[in-house]
């Protein structure tokens, strides 16, 4: 066994254990952390495949942004385990059905060769010196797949706008800061200086 294979089995073993941890952990925060850990391990597997761009982006996007916000929400939940378990028997048949379908799909992909379908040949090309995975991906994305790529970006933008529009609503009586008005305020707007003749105790008036 080469060193790459040993690393592969080690990391995929840890990946499987942490993936099982995601669904068996009782505490939702622990489940989220198991998910983060499995993201890390799958990133390592991608690095072993010399797909460093995908590996780094997985950590950057999922670990660095998505899961942080996820944890943010999960940590504030007050999850009662009894409530979570309430509908277990009712939903179990549906869950088992979906699980079986997923297993069947994965199996059919793995054993697609035996089913007589054509398999995309795996061309294991050793990376030449100076070959940049990131550069190659970028070239394809901005030439051949430009329209699908831009389309995906627009759909994401749409999702952002939709999410903001759904939550941005003006409530009556809501007090908000107007930063522009605060910055452009002058002393004259706040204080009125009143000129008054001085009054001296004891009578006579100074001119």
């Amino acid at each position, binding site marked *: 066994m080469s060193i790459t294979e040993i690393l592969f089995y080690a990391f995929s073993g840890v990946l499987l254990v942490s993936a099982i941890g995601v669904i068996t952990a009782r505490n939702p925060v622990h489940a989220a952390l198991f998910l983060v850990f499995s993201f890390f391990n799958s990133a390592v597997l991608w690095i072993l495949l010399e797909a460093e761009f995908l590996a780094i982006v997985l*950590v950057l996007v999922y*670990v660095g942004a998505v899961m942080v916000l996820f944890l943010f929400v999960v940590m504030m939940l007050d999850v009662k385990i009894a409530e979570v378990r309430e509908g277990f028997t009712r939903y179990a048949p549906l869950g088992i059905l979906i699980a079986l379908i997923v297993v069947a799909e994965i199996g059919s992909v793995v054993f697609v060769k035996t089913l007589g379908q054509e398999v995309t040949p795996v061309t294991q090309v050793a990376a030449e010196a100076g070959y*940049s995975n990131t550069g190659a991906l970028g070239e394809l994305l901005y030439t051949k797949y430009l329209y699908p790529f831009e389309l995906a970006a627009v759909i994401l933008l749409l999702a952002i706008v939709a999410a903001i529009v759904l939550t941005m609503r003006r409530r009556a009586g809501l007090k908000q800061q107007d930063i522009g008005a605060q910055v452009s305020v002058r002393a004259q707007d706040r204080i009125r200086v009143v000129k008054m003749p001085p009054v001296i105790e004891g009578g006579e008036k100074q001119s």
Partner: protein
Amino acid sequence: MSGVPDFVNTLLPFLPEWIRAVVFYGVVALILFISVILTMAFLTLAERRVIGSIQARIGPNRVGPGGLLQPFADVLKLMLKEIVVPTASNKFLFIIAPLLAVIPALAAWAVVPLWPGFAVADINAGLLYLLALSSAGVYGVILAGWATNSKYAFLGAMRAAAQMVAYEIAMGFALVGVVMAAGSLNLGEIIERQSGGYFSYFFWWMIPLFVVYFISGVAETNRAPFDVVEGESEIVAGFHVEYSGMAFAVFFVAEYVNMILISALTAIFFFGGWLSPFEGYPLPGFITAPGFHWLFLKLAFFLFCYLWFRATFPRYRYDQIMRLGWKVFIPVTLVWLAVLGVFFAYDIGPWSK
């Protein structure tokens, strides 16, 4: 750095090739680790002396000549202190959280080019690697706050999560400009694209991006004036309120190593890293030659800025921090990226050569 040098092969011929590589890179990484930790130790001393003199006091000057041994005295003190683990805390996460904070901070140094042709790992996607690691660093803070099981710590963790996510986006956008100008994600190549004296530095063409990057860097490291994460007046000490002894010290190390890292990266992205600003001038060799001393000088200046900010500015209010990150910095970077695009289209700037 590419490959294991020959002297290692002649020194350890009895080992298989991959073990030789592991041993060699391990030793290099260890040397880098010790240097970074030592820099961090003296940075804590520098911070106290600099802020002391800004505030017209002396600062620590008793341990060793001029207080030079003060960091070691501090480490000794922290090592001898008891680590108190709160009963209601999640013990495993409580212990592991400081490690999650310090590991990304140290691992990021692997791709930082220290002098011409040297970085522990000279990888093509170096800049992406840095962004990925700096975004993973927030876990230490969040988990510390949550595992402590205390309201103050939890508030600190929530603040940290929101703040770091906000400023990471501005930081990433600022770096897009650097990548556009350099045409590479490799840090060494980014530096080489800036060669040709001080006027070739990217700084002159992206002053807004530089300002956004450095201020976001200050916010990312949770330093004053963005240190609401550990705001003493509101939430005692924020996420590390229950940490003591070495567990606290590890958070401290993470924060300071991140400061040094952000300073080094600012020097690399906008001020030419190890390049000499006086390239081509008729001056003595070491002034015109590129080398580690230039990176160190530039880095030291930005570290000084960190200390200067801390002594100068009052702490931001939390909603103002959020507003600055989302509503000011991100639009500024987007506008300047468009301006840079115009520069490229009409071949204005050093990249037209």
